[in-house]
């Protein structure tokens, strides 16, 4: 890059402060829109607020109330259920699709890639509205077409089916998106590794276990962590699909419960507490995931 010195003292001085000015917008925006709200919400979690002006200090009272709150635990269970469903169902499907689309034997790859990726372009609200029709107990596509279930399943009306319905919707919407990450990872694996494995007599499965998966480890770690964080922050899909978490809070998630407390019940201190508990959950889960996937390990 060309470096130019000038005799003009204004620009000489300016060159010294320019780097700070260039990074200043980020820090200013961070302080205003992230730093201040973070600190403010932490302070808020130690208060109980009532109405628009009154607040009293309750220390860790909101946290102890939260851990005794059955709806919080139910929301946490539902969120964990979705996260596990995402990891065990959505990501393997995404990986499988990526492997299929990376193979030499599949035709029309570009069209298929677009088709699998397309659902993520649909806004979550519309996805929820569409799947509301799909899951309808009597007229819905799922119950109409999949008679192998042998009975009318109340996907959105019976508590035990609500989260599976949300998970399946998540698979439809996000599997294609994660597939793109896996596909990029697969395309980055050097062909020589497969050739060497073939020379060593490895079959397809052994090559997959000993070449593909280890080479994909950084991508898998990234997708797992990002998907897990996204799952723990689940809100709009079940909120619309289950009309606010009904029936009997079967579709309630942590963020939905946070929203309800903050905006519907006007319990802002309590909502801030839920937010911080969610933050610690995400931080712990992410660190454990990265540790288990060996991302902190030195090669």
């Amino acid at each position, binding site marked *: 890059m060309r470096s130019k010195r*000038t005799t003009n003292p204004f*620009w000489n001085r300016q060159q010294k402060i320019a780097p700070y000015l260039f990074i200043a917008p980020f820090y200013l925006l961070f302080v205003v829109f992230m730093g201040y709200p973070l600190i403010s919400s932490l302070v808020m979690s130690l208060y109980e607020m*009532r109405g628009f002006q009154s607040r009293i200090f309750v220390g860790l009272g909101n946290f102890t109330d939260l851990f005794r709150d059955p709806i919080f635990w139910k929301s946490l269970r539902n969120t964990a259920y979705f996260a596990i469903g995402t990891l065990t169902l959505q990501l393997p499907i995404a990986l499988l699709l990526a492997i299929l689309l990376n193979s030499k034997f599949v035709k029309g790859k570009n069209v298929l890639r677009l088709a699998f990726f397309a659902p993520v372009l649909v806004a979550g609200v519309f996805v929820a509205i569409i799947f509301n029709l799909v899951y309808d107990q009597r007229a819905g596509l799922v119950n109409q077409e999949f008679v192998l279930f042998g009975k009318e399943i109340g996907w959105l009306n019976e508590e035990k089916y609500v989260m599976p319905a949300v998970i399946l919707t998540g698979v439809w919407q996000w599997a294609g998106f994660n597939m793109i990450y896996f596909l990029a990872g697969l395309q980055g694996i050097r062909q020589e590794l497969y050739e060497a494995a073939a020379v060593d007599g490895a079959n397809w499965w052994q090559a997959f276990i000993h070449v593909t998966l280890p080479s994909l480890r950084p991508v898998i770690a990234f997708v797992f962590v990002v998907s897990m964080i996204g799952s723990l922050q689940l809100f709009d899909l079940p909120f619309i699909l289950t009309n606010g978490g*009904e029936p009997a809070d079967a579709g309630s998630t942590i963020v939905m419960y946070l929203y309800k407390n903050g905006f519907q019940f006007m319990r802002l201190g309590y909502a801030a507490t839920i937010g911080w508990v969610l933050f610690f959950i995400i931080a712990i889960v992410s660190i454990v995931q990265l540790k288990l996937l060996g991302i902190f390990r030195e090669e």
Partner: protein
Amino acid sequence: MLRLSIDAESFPLGKGPMVMLVLFLISTLFIFGHSEEQGEDLEFWIFANTHYEEYQARVPLFEAENPAVNVRLINFGGTMHDKLLAAMLSNFGAPDLVEVEITSIGRFLKGAIDEIGFVDLRPRLESEGWMDKLVVSRFTPWSYRGRIFGVPHDLHPVVLLYRDDLFKAAGVEMTAVKTWDDFIAAGKKATRDLDGDGKIDQYAIVLDRRTESDYFSLLLQQGGGFFDEDGNVIIDSELAIKTLEFFTALFNEHEIATPVYGTWHGDPSNFAAMQDGKILSILAPDWYVGILKSQVPQMSGKWKAIGMPAWQPEGRRTTTRGGTMIGITKQCKNPDRAWELLKFTYFDRSGLVNRYETTRIIPPLKAAWDAPIFREPDVYLGGQPLGELFIELAPDLPARYQNPYWSEAADLLNDAIFAAVTEKQTPREALTELAEKVRTLIAKDMGRWGDM
């Protein structure tokens, strides 16, 4: 001394970035230096599209009568209540006038009575004699501790909308149904397995068991509620328990009710079931009839309406569901001017007649009810003058007392109703437990805050 000599050559990153910077500065000055129209501004927030259409036509008339006023009408849709909450919380950015939906108003009433973000309209309403001119029970959802924070937009009386053809095919004349006992008898005849496959193909009524909407309507019809006028929890009263027992019996004992198809009465699945003849009746407020007309116009001529069945002979034949108020916020700089706009949009007879024409919403202003439009035959109901029926029922609307804890209470009530209908708890257990939870919540707050 610093010599400020800016030219394109000495600008460190060259000519291009300098031109961009200059353009940025000019456009910033233009945007922020742009002066608004002359005159006084009134900002008016709403959340309903149908209201937006109406006010878009009304506001220019108000501005023509008041040339010094510019009204900025903003429709935020479903996110409006959250924006209003944020504006009131930060004490900055709230509109002068705002419409608030009935299930959302509770959260704005929390805190000390003097901290509530709306102007008390009682003095204006009383001094100008408006209280007597409107249906007085409709002020209760917008009142708290003797103050009135909003003027009702609507009445929302509820009728029983029914498929006359299908009931008649089952040998039932619905105009003879006067009480809920009559309805159960009629419903047992009309709920049928038409093709003999052992599954019921048509149900006498569709009810929402996931949310409080239908159950609470039935409770209000009898003068019950979740809270009484003084804010006491009364959801475990014998009246409330008996009503929930009746509600669950419609599903489980009499087997004449079907749960709503989809997640609520306005779900496309529910409309599909109606078109397929699976649903023979529904408890319908005036706004719901408007939704039906727009969403399932192909069912025109198939519905008829009667007043809701009463709980005892000569009892109340209606209830109320839903509602909107208009209020003046405390951030309004000129409440007198805002009050004038409020009256123009809510109390003008010709405007209210026009409102009925576009939305089928019956206005609370009694002076508007004698307009011929309310007596006109309604094509959607096969020529029955629906407006006339609504107006006949309107004076008998029950009171619906408001409370700051309504949002929490309603959320828990949804769970209690579902538990009772799915027989996880008896109605008595579900409502007793619910009442206890809400009382505990209130008692805890009272312990911390005192009686605010």
